[in-house]
């Protein structure tokens, strides 16, 4: 089944995410756009200067696309209760992201929802 892939537009929405603001410019992200992706967790890179959630998403053509979703530093997130075990590899997940402007399969991570309804991060963006 092709994965659900919806593009939600929140015009004028101020995005206040704990993402890439420390180490580099976040000008590459489309802050007014929230993209929702459903797939499977490949890896959670709990590393400095930013954490990266790698999610395998099946595109409409049936091919697997690996998305790179950038979040805050492990230091910031660790103080907020996020752990390396927060995203177990192989788990089904739906994520929301501010995608990159150029269409690359990457973006600023906003939040995630697991099959049991549990959410992580800023899901309500």
């Amino acid at each position, binding site marked *: 089944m092709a994965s659900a892939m919806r593009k939600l537009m929140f015009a004028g929405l101020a995005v206040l995410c704990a993402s*890439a*603001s*420390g*180490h*580099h*410019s*976040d*000008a*590459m992200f489309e802050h007014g756009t929230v993209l929702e992706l459903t797939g499977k967790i*490949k*890896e959670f*890179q709990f*590393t*400095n*200067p*930013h954490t*990266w959630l*790698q999610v395998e998403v099946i595109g409409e053509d049936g091919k697997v696309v*690996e998305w*790179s979703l*950038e979040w805050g*530093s*492990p*230091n*910031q997130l*660790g*103080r907020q209760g996020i752990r390396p075990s927060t995203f177990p590899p192989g788990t089904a997940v739906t994520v929301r992201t501010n995608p*990159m*402007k*150029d269409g*690359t*399969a*990457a973006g600023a991570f906003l939040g995630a929802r697991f099959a049991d309804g549990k959410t992580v991060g800023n899901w309500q963006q």
Partner: protein
Amino acid sequence: MRRKKANPLSIASANSRAGRRLGYLVALSAGLLCSAESWAQSAALPDWSGVWAMVGGTVFDRETQTGEGRSTTPGVREHPPYTPEYEAKYAANLALRDQGILPDPNSLCGIPTGFPRIFNLPDVYEFAVTPKQVWIVAENGPNVMRIYTDGRGHPPVEDRWPTHTGDSVGHWEGDTLVIDTVSLHGSEQGRTFVDRTGLVLSDAAHAVTRMRVAANGNMEVQITIDDAKALKAPWVVTKQFARQAEGTRVYDYACNENNRNPIDPSTGWTFTIGPDGKIIDQKPAGDAASEQ
């Protein structure tokens, strides 16, 4: 019975041992006295223990900010009292920022952001007060600022050279630490920026910083910068830092551990590296820097 002849070497050795013991005692006593003196001095110093975090985003001078948004938001700028030459430099940097191609060395990892940007960082801080030095320790780093409060002055001009953090000496006025900072790199050759909007200062910058815990419990850091090359008048910026919950921990900031957003110094482009180690995104259109 033959009397044992004293061996001069033995006597010398014995004397030496006794002398050493005496030396140890003197050193120990002096150490204890110095230590007691240091602790007495410590007791008179303010308690800045714990972990702190800057209030607000990384726009350096929020009081003079134009527009809404963050330091990477197009249209946001600040208004230092720049000379025409440095206003032009800042305007050029703002244009690059608006295109997303400001070559900020902070993204390279491993290079200190230096002063005054050390007071404009995300992540948390510790302000370590000791009798003879104060250390500003930023988790986001590498960034440590050492302020000598033992009464020394700056080295003579001929004995100092520019660094990212400069040379800082300080003294206490009650609970306020007054810091004098010189010998800064400045922003020549894009060596450093004061923030991500591209604020610049020259190597003539000199700052007096006043740090104290304000009535609201926040650490208040008022920085007054004069710069004969860059500024027409002193530039005063106030930053605040809120004390974090008791027990908050500080961690390594190994910026090169997995830096998937380095910059291309020649174009200023912050690119993105994919999971396979290859660049996955496209350079922004209208990349003026690459056309220079």
